[in-house]
């Protein structure tokens, strides 16, 4: 990509809110796949929290609060088309998650139980992948339990 200056160094972002929230809640607050845009968004704060997007590679971005610079989420672009095929561990739990959504038509109760169990796995795998990407930039992002 030519011409666009990076305005914020990754090292200037803070992880204390992310860490403290996961220690307290043990899970993410919000996980949504946008099929039209093909993006996956993960947040450890309520979804109405204003955030800035900070790219760390060709698919993954950190989401942080503008004033505090606290990292509060992750965003993955081209999620199904390009990101998922690169990571077999995430692909596995994502397929299970897809299956659970289909089961939803047949048996609402059983399906929803499965579904609730899969979202934490997706969040965990995605955070682990992101951690591997950001650690070389001096950031430590704890993985949800």
């Amino acid at each position: 990509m030519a011409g666009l200056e990076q305005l914020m160094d990754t090292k200037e972002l803070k992880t204390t809110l992310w860490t403290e929230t996961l220690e307290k809640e043990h899970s993410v607050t919000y996980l949504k796949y946008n099929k039209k845009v093909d993006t996956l968004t993960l947040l450890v704060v309520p979804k109405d929290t204003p955030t800035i997007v900070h790219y760390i590679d060709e698919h993954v971005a950190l989401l942080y609060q503008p004033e505090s610079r606290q990292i509060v989420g992750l965003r993955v672009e081209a999620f199904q088309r390009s990101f998922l095929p690169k990571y077999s561990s995430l692909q596995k739990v994502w397929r299970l998650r897809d299956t659970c959504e289909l089961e939803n038509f047949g048996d609402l109760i059983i399906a929803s139980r499965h579904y609730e169990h899969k979202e934490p796995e997706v969040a965990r795998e995605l955070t682990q992948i992101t951690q591997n990407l950001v650690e070389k930039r001096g950031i430590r992002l704890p993985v949800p339990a």
Partner: protein
Amino acid sequence: MTVLFDVVDPRGFKVICTEECWNDHILDEHPIMVGLEKEVEETIRKPQLFIYQDRDYPERHIYYGKSSTGVRYTKVIVEFQNPNSGEVITAFLTDSGKTGEALIWPD
């Protein structure tokens, strides 16, 4: 489908943004964009910076402008299903470009 705004970019391509996109995609996922409709429209009409092509979805063109909200960029992603007319699919604020985006304007 109600059109929130329609605008012509510097290459002469027509772009629309629907109310559904603005409310259900942009504000729902990026609440920081509240009140920035005009800024998004202007970023398409007259990008202060660049237009790129997405690396994974070549039919998506990405408009970058300087944001009025601080030291950051307004990023608008437009999908061109027809060669000369597109539709906004999302918009948000970012502090960086994405690796792999290819410059298409100015050429």
